[in-house]
């Protein structure tokens, strides 16, 4: 059954590529706006190695940004969600920061951190951390205080209550924050590479677009999609590991 479905998918893909290539060859698609499968293949043959190196750079930057934004965002959200005063102050600030077009910060980041990976990583973190922190905070706030009281009665410290009771209970909310945040991190990193850098998938897309190398541009786009897919896979892994049985079952 699944084998048949995969075969169908493959067939659909092949058909799509064939139609694309055919319309391109018939001159129905502008070669500058739309690439074609053969153009992409040529680009891969010619500049594949450069793109692979760039892919590695981008993956590294995104991985670092994810690591930092996830851990800081979750930690802040858990603490803020447990402390009403901090939560009251943070909620409007975080909401505002999510709404602001943070891309205006990017020139400043380049001035501070240069054109290398550091400015991309920081911009990725800044792009994704706020929804993660906000979702985590709101999630923790929504958990019945009864759990905290129960744990306190057993002698749990504040820290134990936050990270061994409240944070795991808030996992569904945290994961929805991670979904949003991680997508923004990927966008942030690729975008910052396009805006100003010397390496990475975004840089090569930008570079070849300026030279009208449509095949290379499309190759870059495909690799950027692959990066997003990898980030999503990491997220699914987290979900599978921690998403189990976190439904609030408090009411008998």
């Amino acid at each position: 059954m699944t084998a048949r479905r995969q075969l169908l998918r493959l067939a659909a893909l092949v058909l799509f590529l064939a139609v694309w290539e055919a319309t391109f060859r018939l001159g129905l698609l502008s070669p500058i706006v739309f690439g074609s499968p053969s153009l992409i293949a040529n680009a891969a043959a010619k500049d594949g190695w450069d793109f692979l190196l760039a892919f590695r750079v981008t993956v590294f930057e995104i991985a670092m940004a994810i690591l930092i934004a996830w851990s800081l965002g979750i930690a802040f959200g858990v603490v803020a969600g447990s402390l009403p005063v901090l939560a009251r102050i943070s909620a409007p600030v975080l909401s505002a920061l999510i709404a602001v077009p943070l891309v205006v910060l990017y020139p400043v980041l380049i001035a501070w951190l240069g054109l290398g990976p550091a400015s991309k990583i920081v911009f990725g973190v800044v792009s994704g951390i706020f929804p993660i922190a906000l979702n985590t905070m709101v999630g923790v706030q929504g958990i019945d205080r009864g759990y905290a009281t129960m744990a306190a009665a057993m002698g749990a410290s504040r820290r134990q209550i936050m990270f061994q009771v409240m944070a795991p209970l808030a996992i569904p909310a945290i994961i929805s924050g991670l979904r949003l945040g991680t997508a923004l991190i990927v966008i942030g990193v690729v975008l910052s590479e396009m805006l100003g850098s010397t390496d990475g998938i975004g840089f090569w897309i930008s570079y070849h677009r300026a030279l009208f190398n449509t095949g290379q541009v499309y190759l870059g786009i495909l690799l950027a999609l692959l990066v997003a897919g990898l980030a999503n896979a990491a997220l699914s892994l987290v979900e599978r590991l921690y998403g189990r049985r976190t439904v609030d079952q408090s009411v008998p």
Partner: protein
Amino acid sequence: MAGAGGSGEIIAVEGVGKTYGSGEQALTALIDVSFAVREGQFITLVGPSGCGKSTLLQILAGLVPASTGRVLIDGLQVTGPSPGKVGVMFQDAWLLPWKTAVENVEFPLALRRVAAAERRKRALPLLDLVGLSSFAHRYPDELSGGMRQRVAIARCLVQEPRVLLMDEPFAALDEQTRTRMGSELLQIWETSGGTVVFVTHGLTEAIYLADTVFVMGTRPGRIIARITVPLPRPRTIDMIGSEAFGRLRNEIWHLIAEVRA
């Protein structure tokens, strides 16, 4: 419930009061509550809603500070939770949904960084005691309300407390389950011999379980009577239908009704 058998005072409540807020909006939840509990006794606190019985229990548990007076448990003033000495149960079991029954029982030990093998060794016999050994590896959402409260009882007992504080632990259960849980709790208590303070608003439950019933009144919350239950131990369900039981029940009923009027 370690340390069985003694007949000294284990709990001393001295002039405890609780006021929320201040100035004109101040709300007095409890006023001048004093009593003592001997080790090994089963005490119930009964009264209408708003009589401060849950507040009193939380003060005993060290979860809420008293505004006036003090509480001594085993001679030491209560300033916060004392997990090694006092176990607390609530109306809800608050089991952690991602942990199995036995892992939930182990949780208080895990907080104290007891080694995993040791935790398991102590938790399993207690699950057996509450009749859940075949459910040890089930998750809370696979257990009934009564089973969850049994897990909560085992989770209290694993801390080997000398005092068990129970805040309407069976109130959310259906009546049959509630009665059966009461009997099982008595059996556990009779074999392990700790001290229990049990808050309830059910008169039958209060009498059936207790050596001494403290009757509480409202506005402000206070103790209005202290009634010794003359029924022999072990208690049986049949006693609930007896004449002596009915008389006690009426007596307490009138006490509460008079204060309300």
